[in-house]
């Protein structure tokens, strides 16, 4: 209970904020929750399994396009489209896992980067279906689920909160199961985990599929909630952002991705008033974090205040 309490507390806080926040921050927080779900998916692979992927934009885009194309070309509603997006993410991440997990370390990073690049280029190439670099705006009909209008700011916030709550509970549950413990064992020392009789490949494969599917769920939700599907979400920047969120918030902590996303989102938001070069902040943050605080915010809290933080 001690472990679950702060996470439930965060969800309750987010729910109560729904009633008090001014419109601008209300909309921002909905976006942050969806992006934080993306980052939580990333964290399962990077933070808990120790595999640094530079290609998670591929999964995010698989979810977004899986859902978006189903709405656009098949005329599906938001519910089935979200399922289609999540399924697309599962298939793509399983395929990539089978190939990329044959490598490790730097080669794994480059392989995931290259496949994500190929994915982004494929979206550009088939511009008649995908709308190329302009993307497409989802019609209103494709943003309704069970009579609820997801383009409405209030429903949108609550839908984002539902996604966030599901991803948060799933992460929290997963990392405390024996399966999650084995992932950490693989991160710390893969050879030792193998000697103890665990199958590293099977565990890494499962972690990558869960991670990719969660990222795809975030991508599909992002597309349906904000009504736009575009190739910029498949580009390298969207592989770097979850890495940045997780590093900033704290790798291998359940709450870290949310904290990191919230900080980074507002940092970039504030800086874009001053300059158009807002990715400069991201660059400085990446270098600063690797140099001075590789543990991130929640990692520091775990080190100094609360050793048992999941």
């Amino acid at each position, binding site marked *: 209970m001690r472990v679950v309490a702060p996470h439930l507390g965060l969800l309750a806080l987010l729910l109560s904020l729904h009633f008090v926040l001014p419109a601008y921050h209300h909309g921002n927080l909905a976006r942050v929750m969806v992006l934080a779900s993306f980052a939580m998916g990333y964290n399962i692979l990077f933070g808990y399994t120790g595999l*640094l992927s*530079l290609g998670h934009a591929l999964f995010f885009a698989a979810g977004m396009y899986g859902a978006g194309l189903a709405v656009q070309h098949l005329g599906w509603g938001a519910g089935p489209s979200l399922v289609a997006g999540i399924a697309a993410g599962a298939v793509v991440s399983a395929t990539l896992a089978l*190939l990329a997990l044959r490598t490790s370390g730097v080669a794994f*990073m*480059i*392989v995931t980067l290259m496949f994500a*690049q190929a994915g982004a280029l494929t979206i550009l190439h088939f511009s008649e279906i995908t709308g190329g670099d302009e993307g497409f705006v989802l019609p209103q009909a494709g943003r309704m689920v069970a009579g609820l209008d997801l383009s409405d700011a209030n429903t949108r916030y609550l839908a984002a909160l539902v996604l966030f709550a599901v991803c948060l509970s799933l992460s929290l549950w997963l990392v405390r199961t024996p399966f999650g413990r084995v992932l950490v064992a693989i991160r710390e020392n893969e050879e030792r985990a193998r000697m103890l009789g665990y199958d590293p490949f099977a565990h890494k494969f499962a972690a990558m599929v869960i991670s990719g599917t969660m990222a795809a769920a975030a991508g599909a939700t992002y597309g349906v909630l904000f009504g736009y599907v575009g190739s910029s979400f498949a580009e390298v920047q969207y592989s770097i952002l979850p890495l940045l969120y997780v590093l900033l918030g704290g790798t291998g902590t359940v709450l870290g991705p949310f904290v990191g996303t919230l900080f980074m989102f507002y940092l970039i938001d504030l800086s874009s008033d001053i300059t158009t*070069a807002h990715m400069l902040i991201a*660059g400085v943050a990446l270098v600063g974090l690797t140099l001075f605080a590789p543990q991130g915010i929640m990692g520091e809290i775990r080190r100094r205040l609360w050793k048992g933080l999941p």
Partner: protein
Amino acid sequence: MELGPYLLLATIEGAVTAAVLALTAVGLSLVFGVMRVVNIAHGEFFMLGAVLAWWIAQLVGGHAAWGFAAALIGAPLIVGALAMAADVTILKRLSYDPERTIVATIGLLYIIQQSALMIYGPDARPVEAPFNTGIALPWPEYGPDGWQMIWPWGLGTTSYKLAVIGAAVLILCAVWAVMARTRFGLIMRATQADREMATAFGIPVTRVYAATFGLGAGLAALAGVLIVPIQQAHYLMGADPLLLSFIVVIIGGLGSLPGTVVAAVLIGLSDGIISVFFSPTLAKILATLLVALVLVFRPQGLFGKHAP
């Protein structure tokens, strides 16, 4: 135009791409080979070279050749110095840990790119070539009077493009000579072979690393200067060379210089020729997939002998 002249044209364009690509990729390969650092910011050094070339040419004024000559010397030196500073302040403090340096160089990429946007602005700006005479190329054709040379319309190149190819060959030979024949090259190869043993023999490894990182960045900047009269300087121009250099370095075998050059020529030429017949995007998709699959199934590269 018929197919033959068309192919010749594509080959020349491809050779220019290959020349610039070989310089950039050798820089990347050198850094990876000696320091085991995957430098994601490498394309930004290329961009900095091009942007600085514009700035220096503006500053010098006078005849285009003077400005260009100054840029050819100045830009790589400035970029090399910047890279050495980045190595000492950032990479060295991470003790060259492979994964953390990748994250740091991604950060460096955004810092350089966005600083260029802030200072230089979002416009693409040209630099005048020092010389740029058009050269029409002949093509043999069988006519009523037997074989004769014709000059098909549109089949031509410029003296500057040929000079770029020549310059790249010269520079690559110089790099090879430095690596194979000088004391500095010997020290670099020793560090590459075994860092700890090199330290034990009194080689100042940290200084070798800084020099290598500077040299690699300088080569990318040089390539940027050479390309800027053909293709304008823009703050986002680093993305394509980065991707292509990665492809070249991986296919050529990580850290192998001859392999890198061979792969650059192969990729540059085929990029030129494939882009003529297919869409450039399709060519890039195939190339990135090829690289990923090479890394998965043949990590030592198509020409390398050992896994890195």
